């Protein structure tokens, strides 16, 4: 049998190349290292081989793959930078040879317990910075030659390249998956509003931290946020995810755009110092004829009224999130004409190197018109992006208020559970405002529908549950409402049964309850006064 040490170094290296070739592209970092270490063990005729990678904090090496000394990985060995054998290699960025292992030069008890006599380790270096450490050991005492050191360094170079490209590929797909999971799956369906969005991930630049989010508020208003975390890759995507959940939480506790941004700013400066993001928060009034906007260094929205050319909205602009503590943030209230379109976007849509930003703004305004939200998104993307591939993330969200299609009917189908009642009330409240029903009439209708839906939730279904459907429409000067379920009402239990029906009858001009084997439908009608708008 040939002594591997007698083979020319080039031959030995070829074996390493075999395991770094693209055909092993399906392996993840750990599997790849595992494969490589097996080869290294044969190549250098050693008993143990291990790779430790620097953790994200950059202060500790973590055992990631090992051969002959698998316990390192199994026990999750961590070595502080600068201490012990591996820690010294990483800190000094140079190879270390230990001919005779003892407790003065090796702190990791696993290496000593395993009976390792001699060790050789080299740093995994990429552009001068340490990615980790690779070391080999023998159970008999051995003098590692200069050739051995050089050979292991060559192997380390290949390991570095393979690890890095594999790692960034994994990061890339993880960031994509994360980003996708963070975009709203479906935009909210809100009576009186058509809403559409586009999101394109930057191609050449990898990933950014753009996001948008829109949801109805319990008060009946509509909350919209769009933002862009400065930076790229997985990190930006992760920060973006945190911003998004934080904004959602504050939107519910304090639905005021400047307050939401101030709280977000505080949170980011405390928990994510050094991060910066431009963010715009818009809260639409339940009547949808007004929007209050607070802007943290974000590009201004475009407003296209039905009877005039589109223009950039003039806003008070405050610095981005994460810049300076205790900033007083401002907000601007904008009137929205009936049928108007508003467009929100991130800088990837308008910024092009070498092109005057005002030229791009003009182009954007020229492509926005008071039409269905989805057509507006299509037109904007066609005009500003065309066939070029994005170099930065692009997020775009367009929203059209009401239009002249008249007051559409309200249709809700929700699970017959108590939590649905608040959703139904929220939607109904907004619908009544849009229908210009006076507040006295609206209060009565809310009450009557509340009783009818509560009955369905309470009595229609057994533990198997079902759904409740609400349909509300204007019929001349009447509001016509039906609440239906497909369950079988059980006989009343408890004391208060029957009071609900009384309330419905008092609040509405006409109440009709029909119940048969296929379910129950409550039909109610009430004449309403409409406020002149």
């Amino acid at each position, binding site marked *: 049998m040939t002594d591997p040490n007698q083979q020319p170094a080039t031959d030995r290296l070829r074996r390493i190349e075999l395991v770094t070739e693209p055909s092993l592209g399906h392996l993840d970092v750990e599997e790849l290292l595992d494969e490589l270490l097996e080869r290294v063990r044969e190549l250098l005729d050693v008993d143990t081989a291990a790779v430790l990678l620097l953790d994200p904090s950059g202060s500790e090496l973590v055992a990631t793959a090992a051969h002959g000394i698998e316990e390192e990985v199994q026990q999750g060995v961590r070595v502080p930078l600068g201490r012990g054998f591996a820690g010294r290699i990483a800190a000094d960025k140079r190879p270390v040879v230990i001919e005779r292992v003892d407790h003065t030069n090796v702190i990791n008890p696993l290496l000593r317990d395993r009976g390792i006599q001699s060790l050789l380790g080299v740093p995994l270096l990429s552009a001068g910075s340490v990615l980790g450490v690779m070391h080999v050991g023998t159970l008999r005492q051995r003098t590692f030659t200069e050739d051995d050191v050089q050979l292991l360094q060559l192997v380390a170079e290949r390991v570095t390249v393979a690890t890095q490209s594999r790692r960034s590929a994994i990061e890339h797909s993880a960031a994509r998956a994360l980003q996708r999971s963070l975009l709203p799956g479906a935009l909210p369906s809100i009576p009186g509003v058509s809403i559409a969005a586009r999101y394109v991930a930057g191609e050449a630049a990898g990933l950014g931290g753009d996001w948008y989010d829109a949801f109805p508020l319990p008060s009946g208003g509509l909350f919209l946020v769009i933002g862009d975390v400065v930076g790229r890759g997985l990190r930006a995507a992760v920060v973006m995810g945190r911003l998004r959940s934080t904004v959602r939480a504050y939107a519910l506790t304090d639905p005021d755009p400047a307050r939401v941004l101030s709280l977000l700013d505080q949170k980011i400066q405390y928990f994510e110092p050094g991060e910066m993001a431009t963010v715009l928060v818009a809260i639409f009034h339940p009547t949808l004829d007004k929007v209050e906007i607070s802007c943290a260094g974000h590009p201004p929205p475009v407003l296209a009224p039905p009877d005039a050319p589109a223009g950039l909205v003039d806003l008070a602009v405050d610095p*981005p999130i994460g810049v300076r503590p205790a900033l007083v943030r401002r907000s601007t209230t904008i009137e929205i004409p009936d049928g108007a379109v508003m467009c929100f976007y991130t800088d990837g849509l308008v910024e092009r190197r070498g092109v005057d930003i005002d030229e791009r703004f003009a182009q954007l305004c020229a492509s926005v018109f008071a039409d269905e939200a989805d057509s507006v998104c299509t037109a904007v993307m066609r005009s500003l992006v065309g066939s070029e591939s994005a170099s930065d993330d692009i997020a775009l969200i367009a929203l059209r208020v009401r239009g002249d299609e008249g007051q559409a009917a309200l249709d809700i189908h929700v699970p017959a559970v108590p939590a649905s009642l608040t959703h139904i009330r929220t939607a109904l409240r907004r619908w009544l405002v849009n229908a210009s029903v006076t507040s006295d009439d609206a209060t009565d209708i809310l009450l009557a529908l509340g009783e009818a839906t509560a009955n369905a939730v309470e009595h229609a279904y057994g533990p198997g549950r079902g759904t409740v459907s609400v349909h509300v429409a204007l019929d001349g000067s009447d509001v016509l409402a039906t609440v239906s379920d497909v369950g079988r009402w059980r006989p009343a239990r408890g004391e208060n049964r029957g009071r609900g029906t009384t309330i419905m009858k008092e609040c509405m001009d006409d109440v009709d309850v029909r119940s048969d084997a296929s379910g129950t439908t409550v039909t109610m009608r009430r004449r309403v006064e409409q406020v002149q708008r």
Partner: protein
Amino acid sequence: MTNASVAVHVEGDDVAIALSGEVDLDNAATVESQLHKAISNQAKAVSLDLSDVAYIDSIGMRILFALAATLESLNITLTVVAQPGTAARRVVTLSGLDRLAVLEP
């Protein structure tokens, strides 16, 4: 390689810096360290002329915001000079930097 140049003129406690060229991810760290080097602890007022900045992206803006916040905490006044009609002027007002510094003219 993206090119920017940082020209510094010190007169007593006043530091006048003229930034020109382009700033992006590629040279942001270099520009930042040049700016920090230009401003000594003795400075009382800093003026930063951005009129000849042809392009600055969000990473470049992060440097300027960080600088503005730091100078504010050190009680050093920051004046940002950006001539009307320049790309830099537009970026300063669009990003809200004018709230952390005096904008001239």
